[in-house]
């Protein structure tokens, strides 16, 4: 019955993992040899949900201490992630409101 909401919930979970990964990247912006990680969202079926895959970017280096965190890029990702989370929360809320509307009208 709540398939749609369950999917949204799993997407919000992925979003919150993304926030943690970004927070860790920013906190380690000055740690020598630290490599930034990123979250890739993977879709699973039956029941339909999304799960986070954390990958570490070992390929690049933007400073000479082996660290590859680009704080500006992390800030952009963070802003995107926050908007995404807010939208998902709103969608979940509206979905519940629809159920409530139908229930109240009988």
């Amino acid at each position, binding site marked *: 019955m709540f398939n749609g909401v369950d999917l949204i919930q799993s997407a919000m979970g992925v979003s919150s993992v993304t926030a943690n990964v*970004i*927070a860790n990247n920013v*906190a380690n912006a000055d740690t020598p040899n630290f490599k930034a990680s990123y979250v890739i969202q993977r879709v699973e079926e039956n029941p339909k949900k999304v799960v986070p895959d954390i990958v570490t970017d070992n390929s690049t280096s933007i400073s000479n201490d082996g660290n590859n965190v680009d704080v500006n890029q992390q800030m952009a990702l963070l802003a995107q992630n926050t908007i995404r989370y807010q939208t998902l929360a709103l969608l979940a809320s509206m979905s519940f409101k629809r159920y409530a509307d139908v229930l109240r009208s009988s």
Partner: protein
Amino acid sequence: MSLFTAMNISSSGMTAQQFRVDIISNNIANANTTQTPEGGPYRREIPIFAERFKSAMGGSSPYGVEVVKIAQDKAPFQEIYDPSNPNANKNGYVEMPNVNVLREMVDMIDAQRTYEANATVISDVKTMASAALQIGK
């Protein structure tokens, strides 16, 4: 992994940057210190950061940053000619700390920016949490 984890991670980042500013201000304050308890002029200090992990069930997950040690800059001291200085050697040269104030200032701006980035993460995560609180209202 909850949203609180992200807040804790960012706060560790803020603490680390604050510590870095402490070290930088100590370097600047001692830019002209020619005597130390260990003997010789003051050596520039550098905080060394390392990624921190939290051991959870069946593994460990990243949990921010920590200061593992305070290293000393191995760069040679600057020598300036000042025969009247009590610390001058027999040729009239005084060893001055290997602190470059200009470089410390640049480091301080960098620390300040990173501190702000960490604070931004906390504030955005807070926005996310309040969005979640609005579900069902």
